[in-house]
Structure formats: C-alpha cells, structure tokens
C-alpha cells in the first residue's frame, strides 16, 4: 500500500518536472530499501560508468555537434547540396531532406538542425514556390531525420546500453551504423516521392546546374567535406575505434572551425564546451543512476514478468511489434530521446529477444519511433522548437507536420515488419 503510494508520488513528481535522474534515483532507493539492500549500491553502479568502454565517444561527439552548430557549417552544407542537387525535380526540398539528415547524423537531433538548417531553408523553400504550410512541415519533421545515420549519438548510446547488458546475442556499434543506412534512405526516398506527388499540380521551377557554382560551393566547404570520410573511413578501415573516431572528429573540427574558418573564437570555446558538457552530464547522470535501477528491475525479474504478461495476450512477434510501436511513439513524444533510451532499452530488449527480435533491428525500430516522436503532437520537441524559432502558433505546426508524419509512419511500418531492410547488409 505504502509502496504503491510512493510509486504514484514518484510518477506525479516526474510529471511536475523534477529532474529525471532524481525520479529514477528515488525509484531505485524505494526498490532497494524495500528489499533491504544498502543504498550505497546506487553509487557503486553510478561509478560503473568508468568501466564502460566507448563512453568517451559521448562527450566528444556532443562537443563536435555543438561546434558544428556554432559555426557556419550549415550554410556551407546547404550551398554544396543545392549546387549539386538543386537541378533535380523538387530540387530544394530534396536538398533540405539530405542536408538535414547529414547535419542531424553529426549533431544528434538536439533540435539544432531546425535552428541552424531549417531557418536557412524555410525562406528559400517558400521563395522557390512551396507553400508556407508545406515548408514549415518539411523543416519541422526533417529536424530529426538522419537519426539512423552514423555516427549519430542516439545510435551509439543504444549500442553502449545493449553491450552493458551481457546478452547472449552481442551487438557491435559498427553493425548498428550499417543497419541504419537503408531505413534512413527509405525515409528520405519516401519523403522525396511524397514531395513530388504533393506538388505535381504546380511543379516547382528547377534551378539550373552550373559547374561554376558547384566548384565554388565545394571550394568553400573543402575543409568540412572530408569529415564523414575521415570518421567512417577510420572506423571501417580499422584505424580507430568508435570512441577514437569521436576524438578525431572533435579535434579536426576544433582545428578547422577555430583556426581555419575562424568562426569560433578561443574565447567562445569554454562556453561552448560548458554547454555541451551540461548535456553530457544530464545524459550520463541518468544513465548511471538508471544502471542501478534497471539492475534492480532485472533482479526483480521485471522483464520476465513483463514478457509473461504480454505473452498471455500477444503471442506473435508482429503483434508484439505493433504494441512496441505504439508504446514507443507515445514515449518519444513525452521523453527526450536519451532518457527514453536509457530507461526503456534495458527493459524492452530482454522482452523483445524472447519474441525472437534481433537487437540490432530493435535498435533501428526504437530510434525510428523516437524520430517520429520528436514531432508527435501535442508535445514533440521539434514542434516547440519550430514554433519558437519561426514564431508560428503550435497548432499550425501540428497541421503542417501531419502529412509528413503519415509518410514517416508508413516508413516505420516497413522498417518494423521487414527486418531484412535493416539486417540485409549484415551477416546476422
């Protein structure tokens, strides 16, 4: 009775905006206290962070994302893509999808894509002849496109958490990177197709391709273009591990943005580092405390009980996947992606494994859901950022992003029920 009341109080406190790490710590304390376990175990688990390999990738990639956001990389990226692809039908919209996806892969969908790239593209899209509502919907939903592309932080975090769990079926973050490619391309492809179909009655004039502009744009971005090749080439060429790739990325970006482009001054640097580490601290504190809490849940056999409970209603793998999609979409709309990963992955993965779902495929499903959760009304984060940035009422953004959401929900179905799309390029 008292325990039930305490649980309800914790849920209430979570919804009243208490820090999530505090709520989880409270839940862990409640659990350990009622099982007569010394609460120091929470601290011991938190300290286990230092035994987690790869974790240094988190501060490095986060800082890299902040550096990209603070410099003019977004403008150069848009210019290059526009110069190369602007001549295709639907040009500018396709440019928007691709630049957003690439930028998000490196900045990790923290909302910065909408602010940095969306703000550049929105006026350009309306000028090119797309309606305002369409353009708004496009930039709002594209703010989280690219979450499935390497080296996105949520993808790495999913891998780290699953590796922590000592599953019978191990996973490699490199596999996750490869598994995300086709699903991400499917999303971009469907969005492009829908864009062309939607604007079929009033075709958007194409921009002529000129090699002069292409060369000028490439020249302007010549320092940034090698970055993906260095990172992915380094990882798959076996020169460095993923955490090391993160160090190389951030070092290279510091070099070009501070010394070559000179868009970030040495004075700004401590502030940018501080802001990036605030985000890292928030994520890692939740991760560390959750390690304790989920260990308690696993000791209490919650995943097994959950499996038995679901199994008594749903026996098929596909039925379970439908349920999973619904739960994750709702979760993605109220929790930020990192908390959702840290809290839910340790509980969901063991259940999903018993249904015979591959952990790599599950990761792709999980993130695809979260990506849509970013702009699911009423509280998806992208909606608020876009409303704030473009000074539009939030209800207008609900309507504007709805058709894009339907397209991506269709993509989600394909990704969920066609595992080979994610796993085909791997030999699993």
């Amino acid at each position, binding site marked *: 009775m008292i325990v039930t009341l305490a649980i309800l109080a914790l849920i209430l406190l979570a919804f009243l*905006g208490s820090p999530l790490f505090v709520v989880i710590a409270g839940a862990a304390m409640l659990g350990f206290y009622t099982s007569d376990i010394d609460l120091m175990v929470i601290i011991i688990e938190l300290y286990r962070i*230092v035994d987690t390999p790869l974790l240094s990738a988190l501060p490095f990639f986060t800082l890299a994302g902040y550096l990209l956001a603070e410099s003019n990389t977004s403008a150069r990226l848009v210019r290059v893509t526009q110069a190369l692809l602007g001549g295709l039908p639907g040009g500018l919209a396709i440019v928007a999808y691709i630049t957003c996806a690439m930028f998000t892969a490196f900045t990790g969908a923290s909302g910065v894509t909408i602010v940095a790239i969306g703000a550049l593209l929105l006026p350009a899209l309306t000028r090119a002849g797309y309606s305002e509502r369409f353009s708004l919907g496009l930039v709002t939903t594209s703010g989280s496109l690219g979450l499935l592309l390497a080296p996105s932080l949520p993808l790495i975090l999913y891998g780290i958490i699953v590796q922590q769990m000592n599953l019978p079926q191990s996973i490699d973050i490199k596999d996750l990177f490869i598994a995300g490619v086709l699903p991400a391309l499917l999303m971009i492809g469907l969005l492009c197709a829908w864009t062309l179909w939607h604007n079929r009655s009033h075709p958007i004039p194409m921009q002529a391709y000129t090699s002069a502009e292409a060369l000028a744009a490439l020249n302007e971005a010549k320092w940034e273009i090698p970055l993906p090749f260095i990172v992915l080439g380094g990882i798959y060429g076996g020169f460095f591990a993923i955490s090391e790739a993160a160090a190389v990325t951030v070092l290279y970006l510091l070099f070009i943005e501070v010394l070559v482009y000179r868009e970030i001054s040495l004075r700004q640097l401590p502030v940018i*580092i501080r802001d990036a*580490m605030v985000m*890292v601290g*928030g994520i890692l504190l939740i991760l560390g405390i959750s390690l304790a809490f989920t260990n308690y849940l696993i000791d209490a056999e919650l995943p097994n009980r959950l499996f038995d409970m679901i199994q008594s209603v749903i026996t098929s793998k596909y039925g379970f996947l439908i349920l999973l999609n619904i739960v994750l979409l709702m979760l993605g709309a109220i*929790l930020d992606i990192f908390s959702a990963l840290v809290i839910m992955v340790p509980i969901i993965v063991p259940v999903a494994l018993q249904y015979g779902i591959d952990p790599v495929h599950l990761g792709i499903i999980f993130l695809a859901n979260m990506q849509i959760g970013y702009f699911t009304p009423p509280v998806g984060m992208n909606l608020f950022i876009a409303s704030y940035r473009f000074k539009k009422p939030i209800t207008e953004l609900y309507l504007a992003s709805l058709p894009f959401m339907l397209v991506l929900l269709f993509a989600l179905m394909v990704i969920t029920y066609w595992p080979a799309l994610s796993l085909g390029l791997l030999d699993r």
Partner: protein
Amino acid sequence: MSPGRIRKLVQGIEYFEDLLLAVILLLMIALAFAQIVLRNMFDSGIVWGDSLLRIAVLWVALIGAMVASRSGNHINIDLVTRWVGIQARWIVTSISATFTIAICAVLAYHSYRFVRFEFEDGFTAFAAVPNWVCEFIMPLAFVVIALRYLAILVYCLRYRQPMEPDS
C-alpha cells in the same frame, strides 16, 4: 557576508567550473589523440591512458550536471510546467526542488560512505592515483546540486515566482 560578496563568490565558482570543464575536455581530446598516434605509428600507448580517460568522462559529466543545476536545467518531463500559468509555476518548481534536494542529500551521503570505504581500502585506480581521489567528485557533485536546488527553492518561496536563468 553581504549580498554583493556572495554574488562575487558564486560568479567565481561558476567561472572556475566552466574553466575546469574546458581544461579537462581539451586534455581528454589530447590524450585520446595521443593514444591513436602512439598505437598506429609506434605500436605502443600509455598504459593507464584509457582508465584516466574514462574517469575523466565521469568528471566532466558530473561537473556538467553541477552546472546544469545552476538554473535547474536538468533533463525532465516538461509536460506540466509548459502548460501551467506563471503564477502556479513557482509552486510546482518548489515541490520538485524540495524533492530534488532530499534525493541528492541521500545520494551525497551514500557516495560519501562509498568514498570513505575506498579510502580505507586504499586501492589504486591507475598509475599511483588512489580510487577515492577519482570517486571524490561524486559526493561533491551531489552536495553542489542539492545546494543549487536549495537556492532555487529559497528564491521561489521568497519571490513567489520561478527563478529565471541568470538571476
């Protein structure tokens, strides 16, 4: 102490935290890069380099969490706070701040116990650095977070409005 001097002291601490974060992070980048170069070009490496790097991750994370507490800027569910009016918000903030202080105090106490046990055991983490030195950041961080939420709580109760960032 006069309010002016307290403000100065707080600003000094905040500046020190910012600087510490920048220094640790830049050293981490240098260390990680040195390891890559040493391994790929000289087939060697710093034996305790990886341990140090991972402990540094904990440090930047916890200092980052301390910084986030300055304005109560931790990851949370803002479903309710977004929709309640400004008049009611200070009440909601006070409730969650009180809860945060209580939990952080318990975490600080148990991390202090943990550090003390480790101090008595005297094991080393890497090179000649004892474990407890690396772990010392945990009680410190929870104490600082609790104190900062206490400041937020006092502000809310006194002015009957939520604390704006930078006030």
